[in-house]
């Protein structure tokens, strides 16, 4: 879309914010979020790299279930996968023009995310009760750091979805396509968070 010198709108109009640029086939936020996710791959990659080095170098390393609650974490895995489904269903419904179901599925995603965090809270609490802290061993240190950073990313997603569910939903009336794109972009971030957990769960709990 040609950038018109901005008219009545307060904001400067940036081309390709909503509709894709013909030669790349992408709108700006879609490219932006994939770039951001690429950087997140490198972030978690550094942590996985550290884990590999520390584990290879260690004379002994406990199996995950020695200290950690595998059944609870398995439930959490199902919950997070479910949240990925709900968010993609939310986006599909918004594309069908169905705001009510879209918001319901976003709420479903939020609910799953909060369940995940609460379960994590139980897990951490149990470890502290058993006097197992990050400083106790490198196993515990990597467990707390990696799940902690992942948990912060889940929390970030919660904040974003809360915004889109409530104040941000006003945009449905003014710029439906842009709101739908925002859910798509937030969904991509959310799937990535799920993807990290898909690798993190077996690495920490099952190996």
């Amino acid at each position, binding site marked *: 879309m040609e950038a018109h010198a901005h008219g009545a709108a307060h904001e*400067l109009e940036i*081309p390709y914010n909503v509709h894709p640029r013909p030669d790349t086939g992408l709108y*700006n936020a879609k490219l*932006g979020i994939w770039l951001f996710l690429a950087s997140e791959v490198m972030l978690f*990659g550094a942590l996985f790299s550290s884990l590999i080095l520390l584990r290879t170098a260690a004379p002994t390393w406990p199996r995950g279930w020695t200290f950690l609650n595998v059944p609870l974490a398995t439930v959490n895995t199902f919950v997070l996968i479910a949240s990925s489904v709900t968010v993609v269903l939310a986006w599909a419904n918004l594309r069908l023009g169905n705001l009510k179901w879209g918001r319901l599925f976003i709420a479903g995603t939020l609910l799953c995310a909060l369940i995940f965090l609460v379960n994590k809270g139980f897990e951490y609490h149990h470890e502290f009760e058993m006097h197992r802290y990050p400083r*106790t061993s490198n196993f515990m240190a990597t467990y707390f*750091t990696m799940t902690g*950073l992942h948990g912060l990313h889940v929390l970030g997603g919660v904040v974003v979805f809360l915004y889109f569910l409530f104040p941000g939903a006003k945009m449905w009336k003014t710029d439906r396509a842009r709101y739908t794109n925002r859910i798509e972009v937030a969904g991509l971030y959310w799937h990535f968070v799920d993807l990290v957990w898909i690798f993190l769960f077996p690495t920490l709990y099952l190996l």
Partner: protein
Amino acid sequence: MAQRKQIRVGTQWMYADEAYRALKEAERVMKQEEQGGHEAGHPPQSWIRRYVFSTDHKWIGIQYGFTALCFLLFGFSLMLLMRLQLGWPGHAFSLMKVLGEGRAPGGVLLPEAYNQLGAMHGTIMVFLAIVPLAVGAFGNYVVPLQIGAPDMAFPKLNMTSYWCYFVGGVIMLASFAVPGGTANSGWTSYAPLSIIATEGQTWWLFGMVFLITSSLLGSVNFIVTIIQLRAKGLTFMRLPFFVWAQLVTSFLLLLAFPPLEAAAVLQLMDRLAHTSFFMPSGLVVSGQVLAIAGGGNPLLWQHLFWFLAHPEVYVLILPGMGIVAEVIANNTRKPLWGYRSMVGSVVFIGFMSFVVWAHHMFLTGMGTLISAFFQTTTMIISIPSVIILSALFLSLWGASIRFTTPMLFALAFLPMFGIGGLTGLPLGLATADLHLHDTMYVIGHFHYVVAPGTIFAMFAGIYYWFPKVTGRKLNDFWGKVHFWGSLIFINGVFFPMFYQGLAGVSRRLYDGGIQYAHAKAAVEATNPFMSVSALCLLAMQVPFILNFFYNVIAAMLGKRTAEPNLWHATTLEWAATTSPPLAHGNFAVLPVVQRGPYEYNTPEYTEADFLPQHVVLAEAPPTPSGGLLPATAVAQREM
């Protein structure tokens, strides 16, 4: 079909109807200015929204530029205090008393304080001065203009990036006031020293988290902007080299910074939660065994740190190369030699920069296979750098060189970067590095690349684009004084370092090395000379600072004396109005690009020695002789 009429405006030809519309627009804007208001239906932005939390890339670029230049001066001052100590170790200086009694009792610098200065000088120069200046300031201001875009792709994200940087900078500065002082384990913060270091190191880590976040958000913005917001007709191979350099730089920031963010988190865990990611078992500090779990690996920190820090040095140099390319093309009045090779080389450098990092770790006990790997990749990465430098040199061949102030800095960049690059070769060879690692030779090498390299390129950029931003030209005479003085004294500071390093003088010694018998002679012969040069270098920056502020203030007072395209340049930023207004888009009419970025003295057009990228020529190019034969004209245009 009847031809659209063209009229000549200045050195450009415009379609008459287009010029008429622009004239009407100009009349309307001028009438509004007189009426002193903003457009109907467009309430004036508050001062805070306009100048503090601006989302306009031009103002954000200026914010970055001003903040970065302040940090540059501050980092320079830290270095001067270090050089006073190195030149005359143990001497009492009244100037040193600014550091307070804790750091310099009676004006004599303590070794612990020297370490603080060293760590903060490096950190501030790399993360708070050069990258924000090269990418945040020049990148933000120039790139959207050069690609014909109304702003960056994500203006609010741009604003957030600046304020993240600002907060990170405040945290770094605040660490000076913390008990125990600032970080003092080098800008490299190696474990385990950094883990047991004073409180300032924790502040350093938190500051780094903000700075890294700022860079990450900025890099996403730049890449999306360059890919998505290019004007019509601006294909990738018609981009100015500066934009290519910024694109590759942004990819480096995007993919290389996160491992350092992860490493900073791990180091914070080690320091605050007493984990042992980087702490080996059985570590004894001051006679006491540390009560930690152990099992960690200090080398893990080094790998994660250098995985970023090597691409980081390319982040430091590439925008500078971009600026030098622009200035050289403009002041040789001919296209760059080997544009395609330069583009291929800069992309290749970006890629290779991710696989060379362990050449900083040759002395950590790496085996022969892994050392050979990194040595090979390091040698390979020197090739595209040489290609770029050679192309810039070859661009001078047969050129009509205009020795303007920006061109002087750009020309000096070439041999200075050459020295920096060549002195890197023995460092990249594992065997030679055995002798040179952690000596003053390394300091000389990287300062040559960054100081008379990048910083000269930054000066070239400032002198070149100052008229675009402010509408005034910096004073030429004082610019040349600034140039010659800086060139002479900067070599005086850094060249002897190669000699010192070869003689075996180690780096990071608070007394410069005079306590060591093998180093004493080399150090006594050179350090005072280098310190005097550093002081003279400071003196030579004064004309620049005065020149800069005088002209900024004059411009703010409305005395805009420079013509819009005073350098007669071809790239799109010069097609925008001088000092384009904030929050109103950059171009009266979005340009449509017709040709490559460096059409100087092109046979296609002989009315002037340059043909801007966006100007449309009529079917028969107007020439005094009545035009070339149509067939020849077409053939030449297609060349």
